[in-house]
């Protein structure tokens, strides 16, 4: 009953004309961003963050959330039609989606991706509404040691999931913590690593870092090569899946919903992990696993549903514990902090309109996406044809405007360009940027939790291991890191036995 009353309150907020408008703007921009390779949801949210300063916090969060799940929808279009994922969570959709397009079934692939995302997104809203209140109550029992260990676990998961070598991901995480502590120490008031720039007293802004690492560096990586895209000769009639398509997709859609939602909750998890996990699961469960990679509709339905469901799940830790689980959520946290709000267990009670309004808007946003993506699919295909050589100057201009607009500081634009070059070099050397961004955002929270724990427990570091919840988080982190060493140990053993 409580859930229904809460959702009713949320819908009351979400259907207000201004919030509907911001929701539409969010899902539209998100779809556009997802369709256009070169700027992901992270860059888009960072870009639009300054525009949210002038609107109420619930409208801001509704729009930013719309960009996030809208990008998941849009990403599938490029994956299916061009075999280029619009954003990372749609990588796996390329495998079967593009094969379907080559077989003349692009319409069915895009249709099932849109319906799957809608169903996944809808169920996720109800799961969110069901699970958020008890989780927030549980979070109230967390002390600084639990928060510290949870953040360690989040970083370890992100490092574990990194595409490149784990040692490089670990370096990035350590570097992120170092960047996160730049600025004034909240306890002693001393400036750290500011090099005389008073603008850095509040720390390095996350926007210049994100725009540099994801926006500018992406442009530099793309202009290096000649971007030639060929859009598959697709027939976009038959967007509604056939009865057989539905029969093959319903199972993957429901499994993808629950898998995506729960993986989305995990710190460090999120849409990318969910889509890959769903694909692997569907292939394993399929009676015809050999059809995967050759245009199996289940290989599109499952991952596309899972990545959308994960975006909803990712809101749970942010809104109930106050900890972002990925870089996009970290920017949402930034947006809320700019509005003077501190996400955490109390936000549900103190800001019910914001909390439930955002959740309800996700339901409405999913409906808008269905309307945007199916009838207007032709429009998105036309947008896909825009040459990158015409697009990248605008991406750079929007990055500059977005960064300058936050603090009106030229130092921020220099920082963005510096991080752009830095990110470009590191990405070419197979370093992944996500652990750096998350560690940088968690850095100050991480430091506070660590120092508070040590002060409260008289400098006893064992407290992190002896408290059950904290100990469990740390044990999980250790297991993850050790599991990464297993293949190396096996190789070493084989090498030694071969030598014998």
């Amino acid at each position, binding site marked *: 009953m409580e859930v229904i009353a809460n959702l009713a309150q949320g819908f009351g907020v979400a259907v207000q004309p201004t919030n509907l408008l911001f929701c539409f703007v969010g899902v539209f921009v998100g779809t556009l961003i997802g369709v256009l390779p070169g700027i992901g949801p992270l860059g888009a949210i960072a870009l639009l963050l300054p525009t949210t300063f002038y609107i109420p916090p619930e409208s801001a969060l509704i729009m930013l959330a719309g960009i996030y799940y809208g990008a998941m929808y849009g990403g599938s279009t490029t994956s299916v039609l061009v075999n280029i994922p619009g954003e990372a969570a749609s990588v796996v959709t390329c495998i079967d989606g593009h094969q379907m397009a080559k077989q003349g079934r692009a319409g069915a692939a895009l249709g099932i991706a849109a319906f799957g995302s809608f169903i996944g997104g809808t169920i996720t809203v109800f799961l969110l509404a069901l699970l958020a209140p008890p989780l927030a109550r549980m979070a109230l029992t967390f002390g600084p040691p639990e928060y510290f260990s949870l953040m360690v676990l989040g970083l370890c998961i992100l490092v574990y999931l990194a595409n490149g070598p784990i040692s490089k991901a670990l370096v990035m995480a350590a570097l992120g913590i170092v960047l996160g502590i730049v600025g004034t120490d909240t306890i002693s008031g001393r400036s750290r*690593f500011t090099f005389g720039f008073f603008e850095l007293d509040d720390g390095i802004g996350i926007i210049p870092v994100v725009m540099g690492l994801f926006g500018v560096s992406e442009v530099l990586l793309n202009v290096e090569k000649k971007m030639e895209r060929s859009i598959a000769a697709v027939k976009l009639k038959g967007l509604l899946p056939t009865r057989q398509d539905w029969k093959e997709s319903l199972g993957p859609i429901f499994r993808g919903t629950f898998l995506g939602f729960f993986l989305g909750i995990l710190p460090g998890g999120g849409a990318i992990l969910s889509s890959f996990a769903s694909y692997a699961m569907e292939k394993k469960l399929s009676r015809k696993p050999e059809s995967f990679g050759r245009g199996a509709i289940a290989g599109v339905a499952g991952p596309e549903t899972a990545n959308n469901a994960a975006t909803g799940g990712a809101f749970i830790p942010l809104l109930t514990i106050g900890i972002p689980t990925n870089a996009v959520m970290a920017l949402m946290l930034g947006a809320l902090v700019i509005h003077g709000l501190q996400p955490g267990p109390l936000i549900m009670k103190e800001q019910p309109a914001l909390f439930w309004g955002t959740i309800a808007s996700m339901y409405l946003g999913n409906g808008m996406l269905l309307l945007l993506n199916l009838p207007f699919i032709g429009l998105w295909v036309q947008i896909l044809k825009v040459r990158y050589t015409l697009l990248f100057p605008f991406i750079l201009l929007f990055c500059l405007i977005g960064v300058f*607009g936050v603090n009106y500081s030229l130092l921020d634009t220099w920082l963005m360009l510096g991080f752009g070059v830095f990110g470009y070099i590191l990405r070419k050397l197979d370093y992944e940027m996500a652990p750096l961004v998350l560690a940088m955002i968690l850095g100050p929270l991480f430091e506070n939790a660590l120092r508070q724990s040590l002060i409260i427990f008289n400098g006893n570091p064992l407290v992190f291991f002896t408290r059950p919840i904290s100990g469990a988080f740390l044990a999980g982190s250790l297991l993850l890191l050790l599991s990464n060493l297993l293949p190396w140990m096996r190789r070493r053993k084989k090498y030694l036995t071969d030598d014998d």
Partner: protein
Amino acid sequence: MKRGDGLVGFLWVALGGYVVFSGFRLGFGSFASPGPGFIAVWAGSLLILFAAGLLVQGRRRRQPAPPAPFWAEPGAGRRVLLTLAGPVGFTLLLKFLGFFLCALLMLVYLFRAIHPHRWRLALLLAGSSALVCFVVFQYFLQIQFPPGLLDLHRLKGWLP
């Protein structure tokens, strides 16, 4: 392993060393009362440790082939530098020229310098986009860009 991996690894070690040194200078404190440099010492130490691991890993790994070049395509480095010159110029000139002129010049330059488009298209796109951005960001979203040479802020009086 790519060319540049080793150098970057050494840079991480050096950076970690600097962070640890600065952490001690800021004040490590003690476990019972951690100082402002406490986390810096730990984070810097971790950076050194992980970077050292990276270097050792790179040295141990057998190299069947020479490391891949940093830029695979000819002219790639030139294109990257030319692209970067656009936003660098924008940032350098923003105070003097103002937003509209800077945006216009940067867009024209980027449309022409890297993968050249026709002058007419470059000027048309750059001009119209710079104007739209000026009106949207400066007028509607009220982002305060430096007025610069043209001082287009005066136009505000003419707008509704």
